[in-house]
């Protein structure tokens, strides 16, 4: 429709972030190719970090003291919060380097990434979902499960899976 060309389009783009290199790659690719700086676009970029619940095995030492497990989980959550902060800072810096006027929001959630991502997409009426892909082969996918695969099948909005381009040597 010709009259929509000049109108501002407000889009909500949700980018899924974890500690891996692939999701940073996905974020920078998304910034480069999807959000091109046009003065009339007011996009909101939402960075979502989902922390899967980690299984903690409480270690019983010789004196059967189990108070260690509580300290261990606190320590773990502190570490992951710190990791998350680093990741978010890096992401925010990338965003600001490329675009000054894009709104960036961040979210951190705990739980299973697959379900959370689908829920959040519905709740926030996101326009597009961006995620990286670990590039697992078939066997790894069967064992580890693929978040991007599950989301691609269950999420209700368009989804962009960013892969790192492999060299054309045809491995795998």
């Amino acid at each position, binding site marked *: 429709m010709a009259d*929509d060309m000049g109108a501002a389009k407000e889009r909500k783009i949700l980018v899924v972030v974890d500690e891996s290199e692939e999701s940073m790659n996905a974020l920078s690719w998304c910034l480069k190719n*999807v959000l091109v700086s*046009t003065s009339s676009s007011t996009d909101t970029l939402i960075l979502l970090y989902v922390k899967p619940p980690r299984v903690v095995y409480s270690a019983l030492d010789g004196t059967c003291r189990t108070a260690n497990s509580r300290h261990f989980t606190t320590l773990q959550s502190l570490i992951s919060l710190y990791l998350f902060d680093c990741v978010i800072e890096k992401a925010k810096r990338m965003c600001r380097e490329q675009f000054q006027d894009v709104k960036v929001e961040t979210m951190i959630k705990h739980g299973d990434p697959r379900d959370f991502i689908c829920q959040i997409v519905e709740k926030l009426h996101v326009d597009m979902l961006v995620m990286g892909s670990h590039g697992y082969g078939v066997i790894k996918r069967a064992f580890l499960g693929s978040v991007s695969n599950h989301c691609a099948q269950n*999420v*209700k*909005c*368009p989804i*962009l*899976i960013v892969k790192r381009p492999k060299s054309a040597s045809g491995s795998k």
Partner: protein
Amino acid sequence: MALGMDNSEPSFYALQWTLDHFFVPFGQDPPFKLLIIHAQPPLASVVGFTDPGLVDVIPLMEADSKKRAQNVVEKAREVCNNTGVNNVVVEVIEGDARNVICDVVDRHHASILVVGSHNYGAMKRVLLGSVSDHCSHNAHCSMLIVKQPKH
């Protein structure tokens, strides 16, 4: 930017969505060049067995599937022109959609591949096979799956 199409409504929705989001906001200077791939299912998949009587039918069926493919191409071009996007390359290749799409992506070094999604459930996926699933695993570039919002 490569876009896989067949004759279904999700494909056309995906085409329109892509045009709206990646081409319209940029006016005359879009960052991508659009390449539409239409995979024509090979005749061997439709004709199951050979039979003396079928020899006459085969050219007719070929002509029919060529016409159908031509229809899709024309409709796609029309959609593009309506949105004001010119300079679109359309390729029609015979073969299984999954392999065709991955091959063309490799050949043209596309940076994004866009496909629609039929929204099959789990059972249908296993039985019919999902082109978007296969491409997402095997294509060497980023992939965008456009779904039609359910109402």
